[in-house]
């Protein structure tokens, strides 16, 4: 047998953790291998000595099992039930507080200032080199202002004039 496997079996048997059928087979093997049997005996002796050195508890004579703490357990259970009931309420309250705080602390929306068109003096004066004056198309070629197009229905073409 593999020495490591044998050693593990001997140690398991010494620790009392070997199944009965495997222990029987091991005993049969050790009957034919006295050197291994001595090693097994050494482990068993060691465990017996450990048992002697570690009795269940020297104070066990003083130990008396107290009564089942039914009241304390019931109190702990009811406290737990209370907490379970309160938990959703606490979460809801936190969400509400967060919402209110968010409303109060939120920064005002960053709106762009209205654009004001300022006509250049040159354009207003209508100087020959004034760009706006040069680029202003004649009244007939000007596109219609959006405010002067009427589109009353998607089934009809937009009609000029009037406000939409």
């Amino acid at each position: 047998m593999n020495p490591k496997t044998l050693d593990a079996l001997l140690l398991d048997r010494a620790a009392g953790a070997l199944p009965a059928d495997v222990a029987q087979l091991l005993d049969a093997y050790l009957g034919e291998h006295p050197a291994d049997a001595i090693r097994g005996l050494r482990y068993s002796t060691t465990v017996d000595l450990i048992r002697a050195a570690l009795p269940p508890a020297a104070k066990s004579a003083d130990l008396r099992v107290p009564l089942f703490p039914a009241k304390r357990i019931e109190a702990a259970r009811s406290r737990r039930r209370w907490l379970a009931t309160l938990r959703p309420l606490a979460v809801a309250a936190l969400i509400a507080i967060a919402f209110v705080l968010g409303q109060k602390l939120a920064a005002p929306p960053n709106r762009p200032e209205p654009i004001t068109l300022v006509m250049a003096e040159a354009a207003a004066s209508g100087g020959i080199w004034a760009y706006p004056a040069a680029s202003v198309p004649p009244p007939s070629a000007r596109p219609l202002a959006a405010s002067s197009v009427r589109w009353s229905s998607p089934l009809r073409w937009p009609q000029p004039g009037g406000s939409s």
Partner: protein
Amino acid sequence: MSQPAAHLEALYHEHAPELLRYLARNAPTSADAEDLLHDTFIEAARFDERIEEAASPRAWLFGVARNVAAAFRRRLQIRRAAPLLGDVADARSSAADPRLEQLRAALEKLASPFRETLELRIRDDLSYAEIADVLGIPVGTVRSRLHAAIKTLSDELVPQSESQSSEPSP
């Protein structure tokens, strides 16, 4: 009484004595051990569904007791120095077998995880699977720790020359 409460009480009657012995090793007085036992079951009551699901309620309760005892030690700021020796002084057995003193010295030197595994197996008679549940480690680790502990202690007991002669031949 509700069903979980009745189940817990049945478990209490079944396992309280051994849990109390286990906790007594972690408490300075028997009154503290009794308090820890109650704390263990109060803590267990918080997780009724886990008791129902546990493969071994006994191992699960030992695990809870272990955590409760650890919290207690932290509260008291006491370290578990030589716990196996504190309550094993038995002059008669030492006189009967001088190897016991040698073994106690070796136990004191054993690393805590190995000693705890050994204690749960030898003192509390937990199976490998139960120890694995209590300590939250694989069964293979329990087995290797236990083997290492027994071999170490065995080597301490056997004179060096004898130990070398009885080593398995590859």
